[in-house]
């Protein structure tokens, strides 16, 4: 993403004052005003436009098909894309920075808002990283790990359904959009039932999950497991054999295996190049290695391959959910250490999760020590030993890695996220040269970027 044509003197701008004054002579600096800003005037200067035959067009940040606020500065020759410069930053939230000012546990509510279509994966990776720093990775109860795997796989299906819905809409298939969001609703209902929120759950906490699942959790997931395969079949009936859909996606957005390796591409995009790389197999977490599932691949390297892979991944995720549900162990869902486990007993209220009434009664009316403990842990949190870890998980979009550094205090020193969407946006210039405008839409859709994750 860094602009290689930046002026050679750019480094000097941040140097000492005297050097800066000489380097900042605007006449010596190359003209970079138009690098990322498309200014008006092309239209009136018609002779210029005719001479160079190229048109610069601004796709986004307000465009129906750029997955939120991605902006692409396209240089067009007719309808053929000569150059594509993605511009990001329109959804910058400062979440990474904010995390440095909050106790360790609080950051869960931040990171879940990054890649808002796969919130649980963000929570999972963050919690795994904190647990690793604390050295309690092996103490996390089995039930908590199993629940994490189960809910994450449900989340993966929901995320793929949104991809299918928005991708379908962008290629003009309005029904695919409605169907996708409809099926996703069933999953969000379950997540809401468990965590109290449809998105941005803050359900995983360092040390486990915030509370156990409700009594009828199993029945609801059972219903979903019987319904969902039929719904996925419906999608396949609508799109897989549809000649227009096949034609729009085949041979579009090609990334070869070598390009994928060079550019750090992961997830379904990498698997569409025939590489069976999945972190659930390569670096298993939360005991996911005990479940039986396949990693679908194709060697078409194009958008259609990514479509088939995502469809198959939904089926594989259902397989995992089935197995977790059958072998769900009992027991606690949080580490036993009272210095780490959130002190409150939580209960699901009408407006989400909150403190249980009995617990409030206890700390406010009966036990002063319990109140002090609660107060200290909630306001100050726990300290984490010095060190840094990198923990990747396989999010629906690829490798989602959390690089967390602790300076031994009650707050992270730095939380850096390797978000797959961000990496994939960087691939766009390579991917889109020579495509038509319509193909750009299909190519971007096949990468499935989520701008919340890109801008953080």
């Amino acid at each position, binding site marked *: 993403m860094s602009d290689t044509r930046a002026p050679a003197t750019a480094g000097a701008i941040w140097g000492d004052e005297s050097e800066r004054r000489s380097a900042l002579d605007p006449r010596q600096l190359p003209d970079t005003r138009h690098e990322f800003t498309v200014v008006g005037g092309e239209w009136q200067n018609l002779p210029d436009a005719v001479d160079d035959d190229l048109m610069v067009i601004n796709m986004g940040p307000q465009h129906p098909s750029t997955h939120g606020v991605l902006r692409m500065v396209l240089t067009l020759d007719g309808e053929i894309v000569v150059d594509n410069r993605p511009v990001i930053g329109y959804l910058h939230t400062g979440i990474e920075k904010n995390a440095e000012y909050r106790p360790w546990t609080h950051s869960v509510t931040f990171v879940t808002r990054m890649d808002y279509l796969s919130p649980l994966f963000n929570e999972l990776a963050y919690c795994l990283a904190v647990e690793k720093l604390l050295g309690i990775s092996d103490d996390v109860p089995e039930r908590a790990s199993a629940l994490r795997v189960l809910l994450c796989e449900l989340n993966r299906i929901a995320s793929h359904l949104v991809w299918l819905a928005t991708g379908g809409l962008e290629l003009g298939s309005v029904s695919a959009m409605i169907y996708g969001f409809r099926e996703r609703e069933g999953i969000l209902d379950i997540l809401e039932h468990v965590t109290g929120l449809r998105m941005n759950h803050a359900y995983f906490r360092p040390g486990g999950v915030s509370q156990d699942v409700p009594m009828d959790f199993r029945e609801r997931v059972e219903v979903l497991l019987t319904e969902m395969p039929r719904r996925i079949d419906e999608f396949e009936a609508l799109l897989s054999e549809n000649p227009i859909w096949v034609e729009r996606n085949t041979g579009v957005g090609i990334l070869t295996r070598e390009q994928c390796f060079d550019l750090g591409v992961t997830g379904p995009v990498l698997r569409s190049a025939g590489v069976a790389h999945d972190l659930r197999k*390569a670096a298993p977490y939360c005991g996911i290695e005990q479940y039986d599932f396949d990693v679908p691949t194709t060697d078409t390297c194009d958008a259609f391959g990514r479509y088939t892979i995502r469809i198959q991944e939904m089926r594989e995720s259902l397989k995992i959910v089935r197995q977790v549900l059958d072998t769900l162990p009992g027991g606690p869902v949080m580490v036993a250490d009272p210095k780490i486990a959130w002190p409150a007993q939580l209960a699901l209220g009408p407006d989400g999760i909150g403190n249980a009434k009995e617990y409030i009664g206890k700390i406010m009316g009966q036990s002063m020590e319990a109140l002090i403990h609660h107060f200290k842990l909630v306001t100050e949190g726990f300290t984490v030993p010095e060190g840094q870890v990198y923990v990747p998980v396989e999010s629906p979009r690829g490798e989602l890695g959390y690089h967390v550094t602790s300076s031994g205090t009650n707050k992270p020193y730095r939380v850096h996220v390797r978000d797959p969407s961000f990496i994939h946006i960087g691939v766009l210039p390579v991917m889109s040269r020579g495509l038509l405008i319509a193909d750009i839409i299909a190519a971007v859709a096949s990468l499935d970027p989520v701008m919340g994750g890109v801008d953080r």
Partner: protein
Amino acid sequence: MDWLDVLIIVAVAVGAFALWLVGTALLIWGERRVVAKMQSRVGPNRLGPAGLMQTLADGAKLFFKEDIAPANADRWVYLAAPMVSAVVALVTFAVIPYGGTFTIGDRQISLQVWDPDVGLLWVLAMGSIGVYGIVLAGWSSGSKYPLLGGVRSSAQMISYELAMGLAVAAVFIYTGSLRASDIVANQAGTLFGPIPAWHVIPMAPAFVLFFISAVAETQRPPFDLPEAEGELVGGFNTEYSGAKFAMIFLAEFMNVITMSAVLVTMFLGGPNGPLFGPDIVRAVLPTIYFVVKVGIFLFVFIWLRATLPRLRYDRLMDLGWKVMLPFALLWVMATGFSVVLRETTERATVIRAAAIGAAVAAVLFFLAPLFSRRASEPGGGGGDGGARPLDDPRPGGEALPERAGDRPSTDRPTEEVGV
């Protein structure tokens, strides 16, 4: 001609206008309801019975909105373009017979606004002018997305007009007249048994060609590339708002109705159908038949929209020029040939010639695969992947030799993780 004649002409014109305008309003409502049903939604259901008044409310809202024109726009063209679209859709409808002929007193009334000799050529001519509405809208907006939409639409409409014109020409040759009323009259009665003599049966290929072209001409999905909201935001109508946008929006649906009406007139016998009952019923029935037939096509238009993704622009042109046009040319020639044959040759001779021709074709059909297989054997050593060009960047093709012996690299990323 006395004042009564004038009155009748005005009444017929007003009737056509009302049918067409009410049809447009109902179509917009119907499209939203039907697509909603297909997508398991509800659709507009608040205003009036079953949401029928929704279109009226939306239209009223649009007409009272602020009239905004971009600073770069060419003001007059920008203003005129939506009107061109709407007016063209309306005047095309004038030559469509939307009901039967009946007698009141000693006067014969035909439910058709205008029945010129050039008949359906008028439809083609107006269709060509209709291009201007969209091209000018795209060009005059002074903005890039509309320009792309406008350019797309001009290329698309001209391409498909060829196939459409040839499909219409086949019908003209078959009927021997351009006049809409003659074409309808030619479809009266039955072909054999209870099958009506509608052109859709003898002219089935022309019907298919015309229908596909009609979808492309009206820029409905899956050929809605000029407005392709997924790619060009709104295409030629991106910069339009308020009353002008309402005109463009209505014009699209008006065109759909007009095209369906032309389809019905040319291929489904127009207002033809079994007549029975007292005179008043006989007078009304043809209009009902006409409306029902048009309704069927409108439903198909909506159905297409709910089902199909959008075509890519170059594929659309390929379809128009490489598939539709040659096929239409062939069909026109075949039609002309058969018409000449019918008029000049004995029936028995034709049947004998056809039988010999069919026999030769059958023999060729069975023999051809033998020869083609033998011919392809020496060169086609590539097996299944042989069709892929050598410079294909995808792995799996033979252009990438490292593909087979590259197994270790699939494990490379796994070594990097788990720090």
